[in-house]
């Protein structure tokens, strides 16, 4: 049963990735400029070089053969070279994605730790002042564009008060070798006398971007948890329990919570894709050296191979993350496995 379900999801994954790869491949033709240089990232070639590239990229064969050659290269990690830097696009992505992931994971953690308890609190005091306070603040946070919030925080906490830095992951004077790409892990792994200070400095740098990025998913989780709790609390088995004389604390902790949190878990997974999108904006504002900032720089520099590779990496990542979240949810909630059709 569960195996069947997983297979169905994997099938869906396969077709999504197929469509994505076709789209990415066609970008080389849709972008302005020479197809060969859009594909390879090599421009200003001499005759011998372009003959070699034509052979490698099969541009003289039909589209299908070209597409197969394209898939082959993608699987081998040959994503072309960036116009701007002349380095491999794949290597750029591998170097940059940890920074984005790191930021997103911390933001997601914060939003779960803060958002879910607040949502429960709001539902417990339904229509009383804690609920009103939490719900209205959540609405404000939900409606606030994050670039505006980011600039506001920078203005107050960086420029006015000078508490937090406004750019980067760690003071540039700390030379931290990038072994995993996750800055906190790298600092732990690195072996030098000022380890502790570098750690504090990195946390300092993390604070503002994490808050900014966590804002939206936190408010979503607050609202979602609250609604879900209210729905469960309204069901007859809760009423029965209450009639039996259980107090509200017992009710929530022993009976309502488990059922109410199931959809929340699914929601957390779905937030990941929004998070990556928002991370791009956050990265640009805080000069965070992640994939989003690189992608936007590449657009500005008309670096087509980089745009192509970056888009594919990010979308691939989101598709996989979403499906993983769905799978986790299904493992926890047997009822949902009976759906005949997949949905994302």
């Amino acid at each position, binding site marked *: 049963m569960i195996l069947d379900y997983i297979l169905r999801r994997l099938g869906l994954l396969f077709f999504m990735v197929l469509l994505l790869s076709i789209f990415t491949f066609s970008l080389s033709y849709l972008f302005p400029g020479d197809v060969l240089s859009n594909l390879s990232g090599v421009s200003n070639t001499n005759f011998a070089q372009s003959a070699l590239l034509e052979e490698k990229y099969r541009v003289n064969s039909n589209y299908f053969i070209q597409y197969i050659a394209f898939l082959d290269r993608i699987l081998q990690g040959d994503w072309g070279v960036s116009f701007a830097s002349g380095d491999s696009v794949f290597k750029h992505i591998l170097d940059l994605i940890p920074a984005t992931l790191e930021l997103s994971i911390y933001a997601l953690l914060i939003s779960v730790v*803060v958002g879910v308890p607040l949502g429960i609190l709001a539902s417990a005091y339904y229509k009383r002042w804690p609920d009103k306070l939490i719900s209205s603040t959540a609405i404000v946070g939900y409606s606030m564009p994050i670039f505006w919030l980011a600039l506001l925080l920078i203005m107050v906490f960086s420029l006015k008060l000078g508490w937090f830095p406004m750019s980067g992951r760690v003071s*540039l004077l700390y030379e931290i070798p990038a072994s995993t790409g996750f800055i906190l892990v790298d600092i732990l792994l690195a072996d030098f006398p000022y380890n502790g200070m570098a750690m504090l400095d990195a946390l300092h740098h993390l604070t503002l971007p994490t808050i900014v990025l966590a804002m939206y998913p936190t408010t979503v989780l607050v609202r979602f948890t609250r609604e879900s709790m209210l729905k469960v609390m309204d069901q007859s088995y809760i009423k029965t329990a209450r009639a039996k004389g259980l107090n509200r604390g017992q009710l929530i902790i022993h009976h309502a919570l488990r059922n109410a949190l199931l959809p929340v878990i699914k929601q957390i997974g779905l937030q990941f894709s929004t998070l990556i999108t928002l991370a791009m904006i956050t990265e640009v504002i805080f000069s965070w050296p992640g994939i989003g900032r690189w992608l936007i720089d590449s657009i500005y520099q008309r670096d087509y191979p980089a745009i192509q590779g970056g888009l594919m990496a990010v979308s691939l990542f989101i598709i996989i993350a979403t499906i993983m979240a769905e799978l986790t949810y299904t493992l926890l909630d047997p009822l949902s496995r009976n759906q005949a059709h997949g949905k994302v």
Partner: protein
Amino acid sequence: MHKLLLALLSLSLFGCIDSKEEILEEKSQGLVYCAEANPVSFNPQVTTTGSTIDIIANQLYDRLISIDPVTAQFKSELATDWKISKDGKSVTFTLRKGVKFHTTAYFTPTREFNADDVIFTFSRLFDVYNPYHFVGDANYPYFQSVGLDQLIRKIVRVSDHQVRFELFNPESSFLANMATDFAVVLSKEYAMALKANNQENLFDQYPVGTGPFIYKEYRRDHLVRFYKNPDYWKHEVALEQLVYDITPNGTTRIAKILTKECDVTAHPSSAQLSILAQREDINVEKETNLNIGYWAFNTERPPFDNLKVRQALVHAIDVDKIMQAVYYGNGLRAQSMLPPTSWAFEPQKNMPTFDPQLAKKLLTEAGFPKGFNMSIWAMPVSRIYNPNARKMAELMQSDLSKIGVKVNIVEYEWNTFIQRIGEHRHDSVLLGWAADTPDPDNFFSPLLSCTATFSGKNPANWCNPEFDLLLTKALDTTDLNLRKQYYDAAQSMIIDQLPLYPIAHGMRFQASSAEVEGITLGPFGAISLANARKK
């Protein structure tokens, strides 16, 4: 919920503040300089991009001689002495002893600096038998545009510490060119070690010099890291570490100096200087500088090959408005190609005035009564000679629309921009030039000579043999009065022919934290951080 967040935050914050002093102590040995663009190379021979030269030239390398910014006399650097023969055709340099090249992760020198290094460095520019001549497509833009590669006949090794440059003809600007930031000395031993491994292409990316700092790492769009050279021959270097934080956005650079993420920032925009000037912990320096911001036309591309069209366009521009809105009173309106501080400066009487009526008339005479469409390429970065090219282009756009010329503003990332201008893909461009030497030739040969056209450095794509002759004549003599006459003629020829329209001379600004001292701005050339220290 926000309150809770903030409370959590401030908790973690206080934990950090306790240790802030320790952090500062650890950091005080290093300096962060906010630079405006990625370096395009680590060898000054192969580029003229000011933002790159500022980072690499004076930090990693030394030259044979330099020019004192105050007295304008030549000063000894790696050469302790130099003699020019009577006929002016050979120059003998005596080299300094005991100078060591950098020991880096990729190279360990076994010998000290000597004549071989000088010969290798300069023969690369012109000698096809030099194994590095063709590395990087034999492109040496500065030297080619001033014709140095055509000037040197050969370089003779007199002894271990003496070299003689033999020239085809005496040229008055030879020593001045040898004192520019581009004429640095490279290590022959390092070059040969790379050649032995067939890694010649790494030579211009992983530098080995004799300068005050040693290359450590470069991450594109992020940083350049140098460490102190413990064996620097000139003096003890105070900074342990020097980091360039690459921040293309001017406002971000200002913000970073306010938050102390940068100790020094290049080219703060003059619009925001008043904010910085109010702060006691930030020093703003201002220095007149030999430079020119101009509007160049691609004179090979119709309709800009027509002088009448160029004149019409120029008469349509209200420069006074530009001076206010772009330079904020911190610039000098150009009266010639040369800035007034140059000894050859001569204010031009027929400098075009703002006259839309005349512009319209000229345009009609040229056969475009209804105007046409054109592009203005605006630099994406702030430079001394033009703090905000985008804004300038917008002002010009509105001025030109009044005579029926529709302007499309084009922008690219800086290094791409320079490259495409070199390929002459533009209609017109807002660009400029900051001098490397006080010699007036530095404003003409690198920009408007025919050789500069070939090496892609002539933004006007303008090759006029008559003009080139004037420059050659000026270089062939050492008589200052005669040279001034030739440069007068050259200046008026530019205004008559208008391959480019000189707009303004900018001031050089630098903002630094009050803790930093020992960085001086010069009237020409790249910035040097050799003497920088933190209090």
